[in-house]
């Protein structure tokens, strides 16, 4: 976590290079090229891929990963990981599902309660990491397992089963659904509200990272923590804030998942944490911290969503899905890397 952050061209004086080079040096350019390549590729091999309903399907798929990937990318820029991010989506969904269908809690109250609990767990992750100095990889692995266990054991204990049923019949369900699980008809395509959330989260994260003091702090604590502390950056506050942001994103995805499908089960979200990290890395984030972008992570999620659904649209044997996903992701990372080194050399 102590690599020096590559210089960013946003805040400093204008670099003596051309506009094209400056654009090419952004972390997300490689991912943009790769995303375009994959879009063209699947459009060519699958007739239905670029139809309105096709786009709606893979955008929806990408959005749930993308919201988390953007938050996880911010956290990674800040030099930390959160392995509990996947289980968090299941835990918050279960909290709402169980308290409403099992105990008659008002849906609105349950949704807000889940946000509070998520923020508390995020803060706990952050405080543990900052106070103990232990790697966040280990600390959040611990919270991940605790959440996974609670998702199963506690839910089974108080609810009697492992999957929420009958959630759509809960009072006020219809008043909350448009917010998280709604569908908007745009020119023949059904676009999920989650896609709008995805766009909003990406825009806000980009704005914060590139245009605010908090954004500078994030790059600083991830790039060179000690120097950041020496220059007066509130390291602890920044990191705890990042963990809470990731947890809040987990809550948002948990709600989207819950209200889209009107169910959630104990295994929901387990294993997804690595996909978020992969999306962020494909999008140009460094595993060492201090470098990356929100737009890049969003593009990474888009690549993942397009590939996942594209394999189905192309009608290929689904046994090969993961092998193919792996090849695509490696190819995306390689293209990304190639574009970036080219851009660096043009300096």
């Amino acid at each position, binding site marked *: 976590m102590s690599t020096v952050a590559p210089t960013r061209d946003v805040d400093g004086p204008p670099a003596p290079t051309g506009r094209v080079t400056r654009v090419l040096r952004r972390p997300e350019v490689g991912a943009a090229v790769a995303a375009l*390549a994959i879009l063209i*590729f699947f459009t060519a*091999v699958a007739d*239905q891929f670029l*139809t309105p*309903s*096709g786009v*709606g*399907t893979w955008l*929806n*798929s990408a959005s*749930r990963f993308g919201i988390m990937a953007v938050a996880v990318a911010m956290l990674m820029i800040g030099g930390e990981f959160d392995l509990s991010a996947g289980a968090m989506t299941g835990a918050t969904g279960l909290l709402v599902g169980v308290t409403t269908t099992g105990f008659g809690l008002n849906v609105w109250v349950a949704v807000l309660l889940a946000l509070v609990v998520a923020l508390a767990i995020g803060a706990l992750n952050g405080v543990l990491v900052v106070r103990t100095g232990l790697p966040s990889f280990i600390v959040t692995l611990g919270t991940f397992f605790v959440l996974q266990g609670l998702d*199963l054991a506690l839910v089974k204990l108080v609810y009697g*089963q*492992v*999957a*929420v*049923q*009958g*959630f*759509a019949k809960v009072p006020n369900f219809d008043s909350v659904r448009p917010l998280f699980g709604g569908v908007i008809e745009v020119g023949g395509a059904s676009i999920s509200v989650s896609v709008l959330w995805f766009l909003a989260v990406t825009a806000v994260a980009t704005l914060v990272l590139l245009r605010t003091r908090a954004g500078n702090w994030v790059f600083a604590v991830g790039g060179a923590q000690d120097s950041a502390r020496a220059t007066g950056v509130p390291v602890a506050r920044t990191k705890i804030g990042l963990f809470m942001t990731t947890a809040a994103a987990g809550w948002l995805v948990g709600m989207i*998942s819950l209200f*889209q*499908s*009107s*169910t959630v*089960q*104990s*295994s*929901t979200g387990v294993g997804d944490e690595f996909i978020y990290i992969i999306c962020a890395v494909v999008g140009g984030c460094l595993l060492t911290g201090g470098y990356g972008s929100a737009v890049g992570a969003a593009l990474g999620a888009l690549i993942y969503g397009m590939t996942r*659904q594209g394999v*189905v*649209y*192309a*009608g*290929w*044997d*689904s*046994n*090969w*899905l*993961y092998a*193919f996903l792996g*090849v695509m992701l490696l*190819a995306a990372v*390689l*293209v990304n890397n*190639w574009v970036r080194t080219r851009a660096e050399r043009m300096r």
Partner: protein
Amino acid sequence: MRITRSAGVLAVAGVLALSGCSGTGQEDTSSSDSGSVDLDIAVITHGAPGDSFWDVVRSGADRAADDLGITVDYNSDPDPTRQAELIDNAVSQGVDGIVVSMANPDGLRDSVEAAVAAGIPVITINSGQGQSAEFGAITHVGQDETTAGQAVGTRLNDEGQTGKVLCVIHEAGNVGLEDRCSAVAATYGGQVENLQVDGTDTAQVQDTILSKLQSDPDVGVVLALQGQVAVAAVAAQGDAGTSAEIDTFDISSDVTDAITAGDITFAVDQQPYVQGYLPVSFLYLFATNGNVVGGGQPVNSGPAFITQDNAAEVAEFAANGTR
């Protein structure tokens, strides 16, 4: 542009390899059989990748497609939200029929109803019998979990078992598995305890059952709900040196071998091959001849009990991966 070009070559090679593997079998049959129709059926299950049970279902569906000269696309995802997406995906591809297993019916309701609304005939298989008709499916092919669980409870009573039954659940979140265990508990005379394991990690399953057998001497019967788990239970039993009876739902060639050897007493076969073959042929009949099978009632694919008496004849089919 060196890297992009080689990546492109790689991708193209991948496409060729993949399209070679998926082998629709459509052209060769349609050329020889003039009466065949061009149908595309999506089979979308909740099976985890590499699950042996769902591999047999898939074999059944693929065989039906070959026999009838039509195309079957198989996809699966244990997560209900993603499984629903696969259904949406099939609808937007405009397939001629959808076969879907509903382990978590609530999560698939909107997508299944959207498929029905789009005029695509849907048949549910394996799980979700209770919601099948309500969602607009033509019929359901499967084994009612409660009926099967009760049959097991009764059979254990008849055998004279009185010890604790350990019901091993291998998929967190599968309502059907929970139903089986509670149906056994409702009919069995003695105590029934559920044990949660991770079915995707067989070694871990074996360790967990071993720990339980070592720590709880009251266990008289280990009831696995899946073939691989039963085989792991036999191994755990060997390590623990206990003498609990091992029974299982679902079979594989390993299970029939163990039944022949006397390590497993009986298996409840819901005949997954049938759950793959029948719905595809039902959709074929519906599309070509307007037939509706089942008359609004579910079509039972099981249960069939397999014991030492009939294990040998089932064994040769199990070895082919079709039972």
